[in-house]
């Protein structure tokens, strides 16, 4: 009779039961399924952006302002007069996203958003290093890398807040856009806002698991799999930023 108890462990077939056919825990599989659904949400937002963008004429090539040149206070008005910022025409990103903190009055196209991209990539690296340290049960290292990840996420959110403030003071909102079509500003705020909300919730999750790591919750549990699950979410947020960056700033 006792033979029956060993039935499940003896089963060599993948789908024979008694073990995970995908060699993955339930929680991690569900995180992947959630990320798939979130990928659909983000792609519908980006496809909506692509749709609206295709219904407008492309921007004029900029031959007026060179990088590092002086940026006057009436830059937006000058661009409107020069026909760069008109309602029928999608604006050129280099003329819209050209400010940098503490370097006021210099035309620095896309420099700030590049910095934001580097910050997010770097926080993704520290996250995966925390996962790697978790595999070795190195509590101190996990703590160190989690802290860097939280700092990176917070820095990214700070950068985004600065950029939003800058655009809002120039008059951009969901109903108004000094740079051209209203849909440009509306879509920018909706998509970067939705991504920013993801970063914010990621930072909150990171803080929660950081506290758990410090308290030794995962040490007691015997594995650091929670770091992997939240890590998957965090890398997904980085992944979405790659496409937000490509579509809003480069194309």
């Amino acid at each position: 009779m006792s033979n029956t108890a060993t039935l499940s462990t003896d089963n060599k077939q993948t789908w024979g039961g008694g073990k995970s056919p995908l060699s993955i825990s339930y929680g991690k599989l569900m995180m992947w399924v959630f990320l798939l659904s979130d990928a659909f949400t983000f792609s519908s937002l980006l496809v909506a952006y692509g749709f609206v963008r295709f219904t407008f004429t492309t921007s004029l090539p900029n031959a007026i302002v060179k990088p590092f040149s002086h940026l006057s206070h009436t830059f937006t008005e000058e661009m409107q007069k020069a026909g760069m910022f008109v309602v029928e025409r999608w604006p050129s990103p280099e003329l819209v996203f050209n400010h940098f903190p503490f370097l006021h009055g210099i035309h620095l196209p896309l420099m700030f958003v590049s910095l934001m991209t580097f910050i997010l990539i770097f926080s993704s690296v520290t996250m995966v290093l925390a996962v790697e340290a978790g595999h070795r049960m190195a509590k101190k290292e996990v703590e160190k890398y989690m802290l860097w990840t939280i700092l990176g996420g917070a820095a990214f959110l700070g950068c985004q807040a600065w950029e939003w403030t800058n655009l809002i003071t120039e008059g951009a909102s969901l109903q108004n856009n000094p740079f051209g079509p209203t849909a440009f500003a509306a879509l920018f705020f909706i998509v970067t806002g939705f991504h920013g909300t993801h970063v914010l919730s990621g930072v909150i999750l990171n803080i929660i698991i950081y506290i758990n790591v410090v308290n030794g919750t995962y040490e007691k549990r015997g594995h650091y799999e929670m770091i992997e699950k939240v890590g998957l979410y965090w890398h997904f947020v980085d992944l979405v930023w790659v496409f937000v960056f490509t579509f809003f700033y480069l194309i």
Partner: protein
Amino acid sequence: MDHIEHLEHTESPANMKKQIWNTFYVLLVLTVVDIALYFALLSSHSIYKNILFVFLGLVKAFYIVSVFMHMKFERKFLASIIILPMLFICFLIWLALTEAGYTFDSRLF
């Protein structure tokens, strides 16, 4: 008291740390290439320029998913469960951009 869970998971390779840093450098270089190409091709409005940027984005996405998200080391079946449904997104892109072309043609300005 000593309740320790044993999880089923796929193992990471021994040189994981090296792979992580290599991926970081790849992502860094690709982002710099992105920005350099943006300024080099500023006056071009070719559809191939857009395809090039989307392609570079997909390369970055491949590296993030395969190494950072550990997909390279997971079972192939799991990878197909997650990646194959993405084909629906390609269908949506095709639908939306075709429709957008007609909308553009019927603009009154």
